[in-house]
């Protein structure tokens, strides 16, 4: 018996309810009811999608000893073998794959798991260290003597450090989002690796201590702060020096005068996370540089797992593979929104690349519910600040009123790379349409922002990142969203999906945006936009286009 008879609900109500049903049979019964009753296509699609999803999730539970490999995609095989630790089971799988579909990619997934489970034999051995002056006699000053090479090998790294940015006396939202994400990551990490590593919040500023309770409530186990009146505004050098001084306190390799700390006994953090704001991104680059390590910027996804690496720069010799443990996988939208890259920061032989650093796009993760009952250790970190670090002086600062806020409009007219044939004209036409409405503004796809179009002066002022709609820009929900010449990348969808009505204008009737718009006007925006403008203006005069609906 089903709990929900779909025929008794509107589709809008069904969406959220159906998400809670995990039983495929129950869903099938619902589907039958709908077919026998109202038989609405969107409702059926909704239920069918859910059935597919529920059954997909079930795939994780297949028994590797009996599963029919032919029924699995290579990706499924990869997911399945990740959880198998028994080399015998894996060998059996490999044989069955060879006898069956014999897919090269599937076999290599299984083989690399076998290698990873069995470990040492085939892994890269220790790489012999040859001093650079012997290896490269033509160079007279070995690079590893330069001040920017830290040169630690095999040191100890622990914990995830989160730089919590503040602004105008408040913790910025992305700091809370990062703490929530760090909490989740380290809870899973500690369970997976049987560790007790912490989320460490770093606060720097003239009011750092004011935010201690907040960062604990949002997930920190340890708070380290440094407060000084000279740190009222973010300054590149002192902030970097302070963060790195904290990161290098304690442990076997502690800097002079920093040996005696009781809150940290390792060399440097295992992971560092920064906000991808103007100042946060700068700080991330400088801190990671000073600590002689790497980072991925503007990440929208983070997870920790082991990684099998064959890159000779990391493994030491070509052709070998080596499993690196506890690797932070940093996923970022790349190439102007065409691709996601997953970036890893990995030690190489004879040179540690830790901490593994990331900066995080604001809004990528949820702000967790604060828990003001949480307890944490708090360290008031004392250090002398060198006057030389303050060579860049902040003389004054003003808050910018507004900037461009696209939310709150009735209509947003957005244009994408479809304006490429005549970018200036494209913006002009979009602005004309904007003007035809009472409350409307202009939005841009990421493609326009990152393009190398040249715009004439009078429209150039409109082509700013502030108008970008999407994952790394603004999210708008107007009554009507017009997307002209936008093909419809998933990041763009995030920025407009809550709009009541989405009208696309595209020369390609099968453009991806079709799947998330209500109307797709098949045509060239250079012709369609002026027509719309004219019609909207005329419609207001109440004559030309005839009847106007009043809903």
């Amino acid at each position, binding site marked *: 018996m089903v709990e929900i008879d779909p025929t008794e609900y509107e589709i809008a109500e069904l969406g959220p309810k159906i998400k809670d049903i995990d039983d495929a049979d129950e869903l099938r019964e619902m589907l039958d009811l709908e077919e026998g009753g109202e038989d609405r296509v969107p409702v059926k699609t909704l239920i069918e999608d859910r059935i597919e999803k529920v059954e997909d999730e079930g795939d994780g539970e297949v028994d590797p000893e009996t599963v029919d490999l032919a029924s699995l995609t290579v990706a499924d095989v990869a997911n399945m073998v990740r959880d198998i630790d028994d080399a015998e089971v894996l060998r059996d799988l490999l044989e069955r794959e060879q006898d069956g579909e014999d897919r090269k990619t599937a076999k290599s997934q299984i083989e690399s798991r076998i290698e990873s489970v069995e470990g040492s034999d085939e892994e890269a051995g220790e790489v012999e260290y040859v001093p650079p002056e012997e290896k490269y006699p033509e160079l007279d000053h070995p690079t590893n003597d330069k001040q920017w090479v830290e040169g630690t090998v095999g040191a100890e790294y622990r914990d995830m450090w989160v730089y919590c940015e503040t602004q105008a006396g408040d913790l910025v939202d992305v700091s809370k989002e990062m703490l929530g994400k760090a909490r989740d990551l380290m809870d899973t990490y500690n369970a997976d690796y049987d560790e007790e590593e912490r989320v460490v919040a770093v606060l720097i500023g003239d009011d750092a201590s004011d935010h201690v309770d907040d960062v604990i409530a949002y997930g920190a186990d340890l708070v380290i702060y440094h407060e000084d009146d000279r740190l009222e505004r973010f300054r590149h050098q002192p902030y970097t020096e302070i963060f790195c001084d904290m990161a290098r306190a304690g442990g076997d390799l502690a800097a002079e005068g920093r040996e005696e700390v009781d809150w940290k006994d390792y060399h440097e953090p295992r992971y560092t996370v920064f906000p991808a704001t103007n100042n946060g991104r700068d700080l991330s680059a400088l801190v990671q540089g000073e600590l002689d390590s790497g980072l991925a910027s503007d990440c929208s996804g983070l997870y920790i797992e082991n990684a099998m690496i064959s890159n000779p720069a990391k493994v030491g010799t070509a052709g070998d593979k080596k499993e690196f443990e506890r690797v932070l996988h940093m996923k970022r939208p790349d190439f102007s929104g065409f691709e996601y890259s997953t970036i890893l920061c990995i030690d190489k032989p004879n040179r540690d690349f830790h901490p593994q650093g990331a900066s995080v796009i604001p809004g990528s993760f949820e702000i967790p519910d604060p828990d003001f009952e949480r307890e944490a250790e708090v360290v008031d970190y004392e250090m002398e600040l060198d006057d030389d670090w303050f060579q860049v002086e902040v003389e004054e600062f003003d808050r910018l009123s507004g900037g461009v806020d696209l939310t709150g409009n009735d209509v947003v007219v957005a244009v994408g790379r479809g304006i490429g044939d005549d970018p200036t004209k494209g913006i002009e036409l979009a602005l004309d349409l904007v003007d035809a409405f009472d409350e409307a503004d202009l939005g841009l796809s990421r493609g326009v922002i990152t393009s*190398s179009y040249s715009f004439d002066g009078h429209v150039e002022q409109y082509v700013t990142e502030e108008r970008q709609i999407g994952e790394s820009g603004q999210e708008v929900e107007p009554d009507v969203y017009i997307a002209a010449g936008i093909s419809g990348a998933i990041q763009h969808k995030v920025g407009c999906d809550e709009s009541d009505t989405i009208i696309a204008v595209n020369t390609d009737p099968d453009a991806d945006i079709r799947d998330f718009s209500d*109307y797709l006007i098949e045509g060239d925006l250079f012709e369609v936009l002026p027509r719309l403008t004219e019609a909207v203006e005329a419609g207001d005069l109440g004559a030309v286009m005839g009847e106007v609906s009043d809903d």
Partner: protein
Amino acid sequence: MRTVVLTKGVPDFREGQVSFDEEGHLERGKTPTVMNPNDKHALRAAFQTKVRNGGQVSLMSMGPPGYEEVLQEGMRDVYADDLYLLSDREMGAADTWATAMTVASGIQKLDEEPDLVFAGFKTADGETGHTGPQTCWCLDWPIITHVLSLDIDEEERTVRAKRLVDGDISEIETVEAPMPCFIVADPEFEPTYRRASHRLKHKDLREETKERAEDYEDHLTVWDHTDLNLDPDYIGLDGSPTIVAGVDPIPKAPSEREATVIDAGADEGMEQVLDELTPYAAGD
């Protein structure tokens, strides 16, 4: 005044220029290279300095030999006096930290220490806005990032700049720093030319540079890792802390709405659309 401008060639992401393989991956080899659009802001800032303060402007890039053309284009844009290309197989596939070490070594090798180095913010090909700050960290200079406008006092040897701070609110700071100084220009950078003499000079420089860019090879210096005295283990792929573990085409948005396709030429469908729009039309 001696200034250096850093630039980079990137794939041209304009519609129609981008090429993908069967699995949906971007084919860089088939996508033409152009100057990083955001470097144009750095060029504008350096160019303002050249017009207002004079002196020698050098343009520097790290990349394959094909980048010479990007430098030639940049020479015209910034009226550069000379060009430097750091180019070597050992430098290939560098991430930001390995790039920063290489570029910093290039700046240090110049015959005189520059007063200012300009860099753009992010590159369009997935690089990150880190190379500028990290190069500066290697040089151990003061840095001003996200610069919107710039004034140089040659006598006092100081730089005053407005810079953009974002977060939950946006702020503009006015900062002052001694030279030498490293400047990262914001995409919103606005050059200003207050005097008529600046505008005249602008014109003269343009003529002069046009000629120079024709024979850009005569003004180009190419340095490899031995010139820069850099151990190959510390540059390029070998010296990079990070690697790209995987590239996934961004998945198609899951279908939630299904658009009614309307022929732009047909009145019937267009009226449906207009019904959606007219309630929001501007009143008089």
